[in-house]
């Protein structure tokens, strides 16, 4: 059954249907509707909602809930996500599952409350101190939230790692038809490592302080082996009109929605432009890009930031082909027609007078 | 009631709180060193220990066991 829901509300509902029993959050625009939705919805399913005193408190409550074996979630935006970084580092170090939602807004600093994609570095590079990664999922529609949210809880439990859902202010507040019929609640995983009281078993401890550098190194390599496994198994992306494309746009989330509109216009003029839309920003679809680079020479990265994902595309291409970039920071959301004009200019420059050699 | 105490010499750090709080002067600092290099305390069985447990209450290392004979 389809309902019209805002992204924030749909995210909350998807979390509840995925087995999230504890939500801790602090108000910050543009994700307040999610916090408010959980305040109403959690008690109705016997779950717990707490409005914490800060984003720092919320992430630590999530840590506590995870330690006790529950599926728990918090959500925030820019300044609040920065506050959570210490807690996320601890979650990764302790190998605890957690889902953290970032509805990205303009930044840096106080920024504004418009949609942006300027927290890509923070999300995909660990974000806090130490060597670690978090899985980063970038949904592109309200309906896609119903797939990404259960996936987030599943991957968090499966790999015992924090997972970030990177949305943005537009995705959170726009309303689209959504149906939850296809949502599959992730299975329960063995959580015998959880702290439940040392009854009939030896006492267990969860900590990340390891004074001995050799042991700390070992622990780090153990985490790295996990991250390699995630890179091997959990890459997700979608392509759009890429088969015959001579230029591939790389965009995600709301950026990909704008790009889709631009590509439709470009195709009307027979410009062969297609798109790859990463759904996992970490692990990044490096192999897919490298495969495309065998036949395509032009990649056009579009982000609502001053340029963050473009670095991952550059790394993936390893110098092959030509990289074009268009970015708008500060919460600016270009219209598809604006992006269409920029891309077509780049396209014509790239193909003017047959200058481009085939790879 | 005659009391006696056992001191775990390797736990002892020679802080002497047991000595300070013993009302019967039963414990003293010795010139013996344990493995960690602390001067350890020793119990004098000839003194009038009453098993009051003050020493064990105050010992931060939980190194003292008290018994009555």
């Amino acid at each position, binding site marked *: 059954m389809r309902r019209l829901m805002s992204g924030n509300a749909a995210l909350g509902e998807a979390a509840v249907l995925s087995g999230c*029993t504890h939500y801790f959050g602090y108000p910050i625009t543009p994700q307040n509707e999610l916090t408010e939705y959980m305040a109403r919805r959690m008690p109705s399913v016997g779950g717990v909602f707490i409005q914490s005193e800060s984003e720092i408190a919320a992430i630590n409550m999530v*840590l*506590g809930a995870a330690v*006790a074996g529950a599926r728990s979630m918090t959500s925030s935006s820019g300044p609040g996500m920065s506050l959570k970084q210490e807690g996320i580092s601890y979650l990764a170090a302790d190998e605890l599952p957690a889902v953290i939602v970032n509805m990205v807004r303009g930044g840096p600093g106080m920024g504004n409350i418009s949609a942006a994609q300027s927290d890509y570095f923070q999300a995909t590079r660990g974000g806090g101190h130490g060597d670690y990664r978090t899985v980063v999922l970038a949904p592109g529609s309200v309906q896609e939230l119903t797939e990404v949210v259960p996936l987030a809880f599943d991957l968090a439990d499966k790999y015992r790692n924090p997972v970030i859902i990177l949305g943005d202010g537009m995705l959170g507040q726009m309303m689209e038809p959504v149906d939850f019929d296809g949502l599959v609640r992730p299975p329960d995983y063995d959580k015998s490592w959880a702290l439940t*009281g040392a009854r009939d078993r030896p006492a267990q401890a969860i900590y990340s302080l390891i004074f001995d550098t050799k042991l700390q190194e070992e622990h780090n390599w153990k985490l790295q082996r996990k991250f390699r496994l995630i890179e091997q198994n959990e890459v997700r992306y979608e392509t759009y009109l890429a088969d015959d494309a001579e230029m591939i746009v790389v965009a995600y989330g709301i950026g990909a929605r704008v790009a889709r509109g631009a590509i439709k216009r470009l195709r009307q003029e027979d410009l062969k432009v297609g798109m790859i839309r990463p759904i996992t920003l970490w692990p990044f679809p490096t192999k897919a890009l490298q495969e495309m680079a065998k036949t395509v020479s032009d990649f056009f990265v579009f982000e609502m930031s001053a340029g963050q994902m473009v670095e991952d595309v550059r790394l993936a291409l390893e110098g092959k082909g030509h990289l074009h970039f268009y970015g708008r920071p500060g919460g600016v959301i270009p219209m598809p027609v604006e992006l269409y004009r920029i891309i077509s200019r780049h396209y014509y420059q790239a193909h003017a007078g047959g200058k481009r050699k085939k790879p | 009631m005659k009391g006696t105490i056992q001191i775990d010499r390797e736990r002892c750090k020679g802080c002497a709180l047991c000595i300070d709080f013993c009302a019967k002067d039963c414990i003293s600092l010795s010139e013996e060193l344990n493995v960690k290099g602390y001067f350890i305390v020793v119990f004098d069985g000839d003194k009038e220990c009453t098993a009051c447990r003050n020493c064990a209450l105050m010992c931060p290392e939980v190194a003292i066991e008290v018994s009555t004979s």
Partner: protein
Amino acid sequence: MKTVYARPRLLKEAHFHYCPGCGHGIINRLLMEVIEEMDLQGDAICVAPAGCGMLLYNYFEIDVVEAAHGRGAAVATGIKRVRPQNLVFSYQGDGDLAAIGTAEGFHAANRGENITVIFVNNGVYGMTGGQMAPTTLLDQVTTTTPTGRDPDLAGHPVRICEVFSVLDGASYLERVAVNKPAAVVKARKAIAKAFQRQIDGAGFSLVEILSPCPVNWKMGPLEACQWIDEVMVKQFPLGVFKEVPC
């Protein structure tokens, strides 16, 4: 021969890393004695701090999780909200609770979270080498107040029990000490009371424990214990600051 005092079974074999004469050793022992006496080993979950108390999982034969500095009350909140049937307590020093973690402690108390905070007040930051703590006394010399704590630069010593006592959510707040046998006995009683109240669902409890830190106070162990009686209790009087009937 009858044993009238032995090491609690719930203390692991590891030797404490604490300095000679440090109050942490006494408090660690009291916690395990009480948990053993009340048969709570299967229920207890401890949240360890950053600070000298951070190695509790090496000593306590109960489930322990390490929290980031100051976050113990928030982590304990998360655990207790998932498992209200467990005995959940945080162990926090004066930096952990009264500086970086004040908001988390204050709000856990304000929400009436049914947890217990064991608050070790030794007037300095021990593990990091003796810097000023929020509980450092005026004129007290520390490594960051080398000429004595000056209120113009560093404010005044913070009295957590008093401050939390005006929060409606706080249920039981008592300040005790471990500087002499009679005080140690009272401290154990306060801990047992706090745990029993948690089991009975009475809400937020906090036991503040004045504890000697001989090395950073630059005193011998006995002198440090005496200083608590002669000087510290004047700023931090012992007693019950709140006790909601339950």
